[in-house]
């Protein structure tokens, strides 16, 4: 080997042959290739999994049912569809919150043929923007739905865009054994409710379990107080941005809530609803205003001990007949790859067979189709169905009844601010109103 002529040559000699065998450029090319592979793999993972949906025997379903139990139930429903129609459903399950947060991009990109969604403002908004398909013809074949459900599935143009599957009411839950032990009675007015809370405090219980770390559970409290004090129509108008948040009506809601706050579990902003539900389950709290899904935190043999009542009347002129009962269901994307199969799947989802499977496997929800065999309901489900059946008006929930930007960027911080400092209601409502005006511009 000759003498190296330059420093570069000298350095090159220092590389051992085992490494020098691999050309630096081929190494780079390899790295680039790996990078490309990784990125496409990752992107495919984030995006739709519809590669398998090419054949006409298939239909794709985008699902937000990421919790084990609901996911399992949905798998059973799609299996049922496969058996009855011979069409394979490719389900693309995405984490519940992620699905909700990415819905805009998802629907504008390449969504699955059918996707899970909720009734309410957002459903009508997607319909209006042309991001969902009209499925009025599917509704022509469906039976067993009350007018309330059909109305909740209808867009602003009077056509249907949504197939309701399940719903659950929000109510005040308690353990029968605890109440029997202390001899509590279900309150029917706000005064009785407050007195009951005071009694529970004396008995060493936290009267009302409460959690708002994630920002949304306390919306349920605001909703029910607003529905009791100002009624359903005001709720709808307030959520649509037509009523002023600085009005005395809204202030009265916050005032009433401020009066009840001492009965609530303290330090709620660091607690998840699961932890609050467990305090009810462990008999440390007396009651908890939450959706029927609170039962998930109870073991199977404790389910019979769980009972509820609807939030008591505040204003006799308004009554206590309205409540939040969010409806979950399905919609069809704007340009489904397999439109015929998608419509068939939606028809199946809305039919009795799917409702029966839901009913048999998930005690945390009620099925929307009244044709379903409700003999399988637990006592709690039966009571919940009766409660919703007797309701004069059904609201969806604060974050489903208004613009999502308003709900998440204004209302969540505002309600948390209220819980931290319930005294400054004027400042709070003024701040909400200013932000509302900036968001509800069109």
């Amino acid at each position, binding site marked *: *080997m*000759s*003498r*190296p*002529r*330059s*420093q570069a040559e*000298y350095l090159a000699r220092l590389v051992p042959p085992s490494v020098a065998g691999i050309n630096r*450029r081929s190494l780079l090319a390899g790295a680039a290739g790996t990078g490309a592979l990784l990125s496409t793999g990752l992107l495919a993972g984030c995006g739709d999994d519809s590669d398998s949906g090419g054949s006409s025997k298939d239909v794709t379903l985008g699902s937000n049912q990421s919790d084990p139990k609901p996911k399992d139930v949905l798998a059973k429903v799609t299996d049922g569809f496969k058996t009855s129609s011979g069409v394979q459903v490719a389900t693309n399950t995405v984490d519940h919150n992620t699905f*909700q*947060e990415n*819905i*805009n*991009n998802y629907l*504008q990109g390449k969504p699955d043929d059918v996707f899970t969604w909720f009734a309410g403002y*957002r459903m009508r908004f997607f319909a209006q*923007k042309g*991001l969902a398909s009209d499925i009025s013809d599917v509704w022509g074949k469906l039976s067993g739905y009350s007018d309330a459900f059909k109305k909740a599935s209808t867009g602003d143009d009077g056509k249907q865009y949504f197939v309701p599957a399940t719903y659950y009411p929000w109510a005040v839950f308690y353990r029968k054994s605890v109440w029997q032990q202390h001899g509590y009675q279900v309150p029917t007015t706000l005064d009785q409710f407050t007195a009951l809370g005071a009694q529970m405090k004396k008995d060493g219980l936290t009267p009302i379990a409460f959690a708002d*770390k*994630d*920002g949304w559970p306390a919306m349920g409290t605001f909703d029910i107080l607003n529905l009791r004090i100002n009624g359903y129509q005001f709720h709808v108008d307030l959520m649509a941005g037509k009523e002023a948040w600085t009005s005395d009506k809204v202030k009265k809601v916050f005032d009433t809530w401020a009066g009840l706050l001492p009965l609530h579990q*303290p*330090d*709620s*902003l*660091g*607690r998840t609803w699961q*932890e609050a539900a*467990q*305090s009810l389950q462990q008999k440390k709290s007396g009651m908890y205003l939450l959706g029927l899904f609170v039962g998930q935190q109870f073991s199977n043999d404790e389910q019979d001990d769980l009972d509820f009542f609807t939030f008591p009347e505040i204003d006799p002129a308004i009554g206590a007949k309205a409540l939040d009962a969010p409806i979950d269901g399905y919609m069809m994307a704007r340009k489904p790859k397999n439109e015929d199969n998608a419509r068939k799947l939606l028809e199946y989802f809305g039919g009795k067979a799917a409702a029966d499977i839901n009913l048999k496997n998930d005690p945390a929800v009620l099925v929307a189709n009244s044709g379903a065999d409700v003999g399988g309901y637990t006592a709690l489900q039966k009571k919940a169905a009766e409660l919703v059946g007797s309701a004069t008006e059904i609201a969806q929930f604060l974050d489903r009844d208004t613009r*999502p*930007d308003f*709900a*998440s*960027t204004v209302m*969540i*911080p*505002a309600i*948390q*601010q209220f819980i*931290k400092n319930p005294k400054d209601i004027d400042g709070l409502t003024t*701040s909400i109103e*200013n*932000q509302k005006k*900036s*968001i509800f*511009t069109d």
Partner: protein
Amino acid sequence: MSDLPLIQADHAVPPPAATTSTGGRRRRLRLLSPTDRVVITLMVVVPLLLVTALVWLPALATVVLSGTDWDGIGPLNEIEFVGGRNYSDVVNIYPPFVPAVQHNLLWLAVLFVVATPFGMFLAVLLDKELRGSRFYQTALYLPVVLSLALIGFVWQLLYSRDQGLINAVLGTDTDWYGDSNVNIWAVMLASGWRHVGYIMLLYLAGLKGVDPSLREAAAVDGASEVRTFFRVVFPVLRPINIIVLVVTVIESLRAFDLVWVVNKGRNGLELISALVTQNVVGEASRIGFGSALATIMLVVSLVFITIYLATVMRENRE
């Protein structure tokens, strides 16, 4: 094998000053084969295109979008421009904004004053080859490797008010994540826990590269350990120090992940980056408003970047 010592090989190359300027250029060109030139061109052009497409264009688009009220839906030509309204809204009627700025500054101060020096201190200790230093290294570096979801979960187990370890051991009922006076410190501790390991590893790598003869010389001159570190080792490590400084500033400006895992950057944990995400990424899709926040963050970052670049360039010139 070469028949002369290598040190002379360098001298064998004629110094460039000996050739004429044109001759020198031709010679340099000849050193690069055509393949080399293609590779170099590609290596410059490809990253340049990537940086332009992935960094500069989006940054520019953010600034443009911050003047609109786009909600992320519909074609681009329907975007309406609203002038500076988003900015005035951010400053005047958006309650989380001011706390977010304060928290970002607090974050920078704490990382800079506490976490970074502590990480450097640990690196110096570990550099002493204590018994089991491998174990300490691994233990301290572990948080950097763990995924954020896991870190959020680990600290949730410690901090949970009703079921957490800290309250159980201390017998207190502090609401670590929910009390807006406490939670920023709680999260900062978790963030510092991660940052310390990162800085430690960076600095340890630097310390391993310090020529031992420098320390020996200092020891022979009778300098104490502390004096040796501050007068000899620390100045020698200047490149590493700058990297550590830059990493600290970057980490505190982009601090986001932990507060997001804890409570999505609300209720006492507001950070500008979290506000941007809340507005832009989530279901909310206030793209225009979120872009205004992002632009503000860009400007703040630019201040630090400018100071840093100016310092580095001035020192290079000297």
